[in-house]
């Protein structure tokens, strides 16, 4: 129980590595950085192995319950400060802990995240050996491991979201690792912003769940979901909540329409693409939906949406990948496409199949990216496949491991991808409803495309004629052991990992799906049979006691599709020399142009959502809103201010006129003018002569005398 009780150490170790890099990394030697950062991840992997072993033993004696360990209460309290009223009117206290949950689902994720993460850390010591910012890179990688492990091991949605945001942050930091390049920093911004859009949906979904269930802990939410008798209103809200959660998953796991950040994310160093954008971060969305399977099963409409979006994404991205020339872009679109498969699986209720595909995909996609990194390293930084060719004999380890990975992703038995992809297609075909046959068809065509573009990659890179310049040709060398060893380990996993899910139809016991039964089976009761709508949703796993012949037929068809794709690629590219023509360009140039330009989706988003390009004279989107606001501010608000100013000046002019002409004119000057006018006649009496004064005096005197005498 040592490992299990100290499960909190698993995320903490990489966090410690990141902290050491943050504080002391600048002064450390590269070997010290290696020792610290790679060492903590190796330790985390070993701990993870021990933990899972102990969990399996523990679970056997505890009804296969999830193991929960709560470290402390992070949000909320028992004192009732954060009480709120849930949808059915009862009181609930909001509480989110820093707690860890281990059940088969998180155990699987834990193992491959730490395992593949460890291999990629080792690979990076070789790949990044000559790059600047070494300690920064490993610090960010460790921070990423910490966030991803928090996400996987969280026992409630809030802590999961903390990890979710953390991996988004690390994705931003790592994509923009070469931040002096504008394209890299733009790509980092794009990744973070598009992710954020999904996060808005996630948060709203969390609000709904909290309101419905009263708690955000997985055990509580599952208990709520498994309860019988949900009212139609509750089911509507659950549908809303699950759709919003899926929006979050679309952002993180690059589904339509929020996939646009993933191809641009190839600006980051190749180990970053391998770890984050192939094996771990992009699977977080799948993890979250799988974790919420109890809620999704209550909302058939949401599941249909998930399946349709997944299938459409798969074929959409595969079609773009057919014509891309950058080796990493092909792999990026391949990742989006394979993620579409995973969501298709989740959407038809085949949760275990989806998780199985995540598991196998992590190995072969990481291997493909690391191999591409090895090729780029050998080609002195060249990434364009038009300038490669005939590398097979020169970098044999890389070639052989990438070939194994390509066989795996194309779905050729007995490599890993065959089992997982075939299971998904089979589950889709047998779902109730004719529409699922269409989805199967979409998945089928995508499988053909996958084989085509992956073998195109192999032929253009490793076969065909050499198309590179002579100096590059001279420098081609196999990568050091630190890089080739992880390739070999991953190739072994790509070969053998599929055997864990060897299906019943071929005589196996499907141990992978059985291991996941406690997570996806509906506990004791198999409810929703009375729902009737989508019968296949009644169980997370189809009960196949007998295998119908259709399964063998479909299996044969999938292998056939892979083979046809391989053959078509071989026909077009195996002898490609300088200036080779793309078959699609020769057959239908407008189609080629559209695919090469990624269906102009980025441009479309620029027109509609960001507003970086104008439509005629009108700018839409965020920048359009900015322009409109600016126009409003300049014309309306400032116009009002100017009007107020004008009004003040006009009233001042009026006041001054009033003061000058009315007050001063009439009030002040009036009496003066009156006095002056009256003075004109009055002046006439003045002569200035003394004798006149004397006369007037005399007249007055006479008047007095007369008055005195005659009165």
């Amino acid at each position, binding site marked *: 129980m040592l490992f299990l009780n100290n499960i909190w150490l698993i995320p903490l170790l990489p966090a410690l590595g990141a902290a050491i890099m943050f504080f002391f990394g600048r002064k450390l030697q590269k070997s010290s950085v290696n020792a610290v950062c790679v060492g903590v991840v190796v330790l985390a992997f070993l701990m993870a192995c021990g933990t899972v072993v102990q969990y399996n033993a523990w679970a056997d004696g505890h009804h296969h319950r999830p193991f929960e360990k709560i470290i402390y209460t992070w949000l909320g309290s028992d004192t009732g400060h954060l009480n709120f009223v849930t949808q059915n009117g009862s009181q609930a206290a909001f509480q989110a802990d820093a707690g860890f949950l281990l059940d088969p689902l998180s155990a699987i994720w834990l193992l491959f995240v730490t395992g593949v993460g460890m291999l990629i850390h080792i690979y990076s010591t070789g790949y990044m050996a000559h790059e600047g910012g070494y300690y920064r890179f490993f610090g960010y990688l460790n921070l990423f491991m910490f966030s991803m492990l928090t996400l996987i091991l969280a026992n409630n949605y809030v802590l999961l979201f903390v990890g979710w945001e953390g991996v988004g942050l690390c994705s931003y930091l790592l994509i923009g690792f070469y931040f002096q390049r504008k394209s890299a920093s733009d790509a980092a911004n794009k990744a973070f912003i598009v992710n954020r859009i999904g996060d808005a949906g996630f948060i709203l979904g969390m609000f709904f769940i909290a309101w419905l269930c009263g708690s955000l802990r997985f055990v509580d939410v599952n208990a709520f979901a498994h309860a019988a008798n949900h009212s139609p209103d509750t089911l509507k809200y659950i549908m809303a909540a699950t759709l919003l959660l899926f929006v979050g998953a679309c952002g993180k796991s690059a589904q339509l329409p929020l996939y646009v950040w993933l191809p641009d994310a190839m600006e980051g160093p190749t180990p970053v693409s391998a770890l984050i954008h192939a094996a771990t971060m992009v699977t977080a969305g799948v993890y979250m939906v799988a974790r919420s399977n109890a809620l999704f099963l209550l909302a058939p409409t949401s599941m249909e949406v998930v399946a349709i979006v997944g299938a459409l994404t798969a074929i959409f991205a595969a079609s773009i990948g057919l014509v891309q020339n950058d080796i990493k872009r092909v792999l990026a679109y391949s990742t989006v496409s394979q993620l579409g498969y995973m969501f298709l699986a989740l959407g038809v209720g085949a949760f275990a199949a989806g998780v199985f595909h995540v598991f196998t995909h992590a190995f072969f996609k990481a291997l493909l990216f690391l191999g591409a990194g090895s090729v780029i390293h050998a080609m002195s930084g060249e990434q364009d496949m038009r300038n490669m060719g005939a590398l097979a004999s020169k970098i044999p380890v890389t070639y052989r491991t990438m070939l194994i990975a390509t066989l795996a992703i194309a779905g050729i038995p007995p490599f890993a991808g065959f089992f997982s992809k075939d299971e998904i297609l089979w589950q889709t075909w047998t779902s109730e409803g004719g529409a699922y046959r269409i989805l199967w068809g979409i998945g089928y065509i995508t499988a053909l495309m996958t084989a085509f573009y992956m073998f195109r990659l192999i032929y253009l890179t490793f076969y065909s004629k050499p198309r590179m310049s002579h100096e590059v040709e001279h420098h081609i060398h196999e990568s050091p052991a630190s890089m080739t060893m992880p390739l070999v380990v991953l190739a072994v996993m790509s070969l053998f990992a599929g055997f864990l899910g060897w299906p019943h139809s071929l005589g196996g016991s499907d141990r992978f799906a059985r291991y996941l039964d406690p997570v996806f089976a509906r506990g004791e009761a198999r409810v929703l049979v009375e729902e009737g709508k989508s019968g296949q949703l009644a169980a997370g796993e189809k009960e196949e006691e007998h295998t119908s012949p259709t399964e063998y037929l479909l299996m044969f068809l999938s292998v056939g599709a892979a083979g046809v794709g391989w053959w078509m690629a071989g026909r077009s590219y195996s002898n490609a020399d300088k200036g080779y023509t793309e078959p699609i360009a020769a057959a239908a140039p407008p189609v080629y142009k559209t695919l090469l330009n990624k269906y102009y989706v980025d441009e479309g988003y620029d027109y509609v959502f960001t507003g970086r390009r104008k439509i005629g004279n009108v700018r839409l989107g965020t920048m359009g809103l900015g322009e409109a606001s600016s126009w409003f501010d300049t014309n309306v608000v400032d116009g009002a201010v100017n009007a107020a100013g004008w009004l003040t000046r006009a009233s001042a002019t009026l006041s001054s006129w009033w003061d000058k002409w009315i007050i001063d004119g009439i009030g002040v000057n009036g009496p003066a003018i009156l006095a002056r006018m009256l003075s004109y006649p009055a002046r006439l009496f*003045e*002569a*200035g*002569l003394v*004798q006149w004064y*004397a006369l007037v005096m005399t007249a007055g005197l006479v008047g007095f005398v007369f008055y005195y005498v005659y009165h």
Partner: protein
Amino acid sequence: MLDISTLHYLVLGAALFLLGVIGVLTRRNVVIVLMSIELILNAVNLNLVAFSRYWQGIHGPSALHGQVFAIFVITDAAAEAAVGLGILIAFFRNKETVNVDEVHLLKW
């Protein structure tokens, strides 16, 4: 023969007064105006003395009030004449003329 009574003196005094006033009001020469003012004052003196005599006739020989006052008037006339002539000198220095109607600086 007619008895010369007080009335005759008063009439004479009034006539002299009237002449003096007319002289003040109508003569152009400043000196003549001053002389007329003297004439007025002397007319007043005559009045005063006449009334003093009248009063002596009624209240006895000690009713000399009029005559005393006439002495005052004479003194006053002398002083006034001096001042008047001073003004005349100043007047002449400024204006080079002794015609009163040429001093009308206060005329508008």
